[in-house]
């Protein structure tokens, strides 16, 4: 029989809650930078200018994504906390509404009305247990639902940086006008495939390869679109110059 340590499982869930920021940040960093490199390679002839622009884009992107994640999580936490507080106030004033609501949810999940009633009645002997169960069952909210704004911001910013470095490094290090971009694209493709595979592995999916391929397809589409847009606007640069 497998024993499950709730505390250990809880810590694991807390760590996994940052997966969204990591996957989102790395994906965005890789794609944005690869897109910038592709676009500028089509529009600008000097290698150093492309690298400088990509570095600036990386710094701005990391800060922007980090700040965005921080502000977004903070706003979400504030809104959800306020809503939960309203529910708690109403539950204290009208416990019947919470009891009936929770009973309905338990019945929807397959319990008989009688069994659900007994569970809710037992929970009602401990108001905190009733409130937290009702929040989870009726509204899908629990303490773990709320993100940590500062952590989310830092993780997102760092993930973007890591992702951005992936195509940038080969572009900077590999000499030659074609090989540098090719190296960046290969690194981008491999990384996105790896991120997709990693996400599939975390989700215990059997089709991790498909998850990786989906990320790869998105990367190729974005890169191709960026390159084509760069080509399309390059005559404008020539006119302005």
């Amino acid at each position, binding site marked *: 029989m497998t024993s499950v340590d709730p505390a250990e499982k809880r810590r694991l869930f807390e760590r996994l809650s940052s997966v969204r920021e990591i996957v989102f940040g790395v994906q965005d960093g890789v794609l944005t930078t690869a897109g910038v490199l592709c676009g500028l390679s089509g529009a600008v002839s000097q290698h150093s200018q492309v690298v400088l622009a990509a570095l600036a884009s990386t710094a701005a992107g990391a800060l922007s994504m980090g700040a965005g994640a921080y502000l977004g999580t903070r706003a979400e936490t504030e809104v959800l906390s306020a809503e939960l507080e309203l529910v708690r106030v109403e539950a204290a004033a009208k*416990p*019947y*509404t919470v009891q*009936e609501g929770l009973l309905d949810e338990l019945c929807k999940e397959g319990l008989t009305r*009688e069994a*659900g*009633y007994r569970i*809710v009645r037992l929970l009602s002997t401990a108001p905190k247990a009733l409130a937290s169960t009702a929040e989870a069952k009726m509204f899908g909210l629990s303490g773990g639902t709320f993100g940590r704004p500062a952590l989310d911001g830092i993780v997102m910013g760092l993930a973007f940086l890591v992702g951005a470095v992936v195509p940038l490094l080969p572009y900077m290090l590999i000499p030659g006008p074609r090989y540098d971009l090719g190296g960046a694209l290969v690194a981008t493709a491999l990384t996105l495939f790896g991120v997709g595979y990693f996400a599939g592995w975390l989700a215990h999916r059997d089709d991790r390869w498909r998850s990786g391929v989906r990320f790869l397809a998105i990367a190729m589409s974005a890169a191709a679109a960026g390159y084509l847009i760069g080509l399309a606007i390059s005559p404008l640069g020539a006119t302005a110059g």
Partner: protein
Amino acid sequence: MLKPGDPAPSFDLECALDGRIARSSLAKICSELVLLFFYPRDFSFICPTEVTGFNKALKEFAAEETTIVGISIDDVDSHLRWARELGGIGYPLLADPDGNLARAYGVFDDQQKVALRATFILDRKRKVVFAASCPLNVGRSVIETLRIVRALRTGQLCPADWKPGVEFGPSGREF
């Protein structure tokens, strides 16, 4: 929903009474008044406050020659277990699993598939003399229902908030 003056639809249904399954028929009730109260479900959290509330006031209603009958869409086995859970109920809980009786009284909530919290008082001729309904989330007042029964029994003009001891309205008038 039926209104005062309408003839009350009859019934002859299985019920839970005194811890056993029985039958209850409107035709066989011989008290002066009959109090029918529909409630949404057994094993819920507002209904038991009403069901036990009427049970506690059973003697007072009996003193007013009034028979109490509770009705919901639950089956009779559920009523039995529910009544046991509540410590025993001294009046019949009728099983109306198809909601036909609730429909006949015009108090079936088609959306929720339950009866509304509706109260009817029937007179000796089994005509409706009082009808009221509450939203599903609001329980009824047993005290107010008893006050209305007492007022109906006087056959007099009873002003607002009338209760025994308070002067009646002018005699010889209908309202």
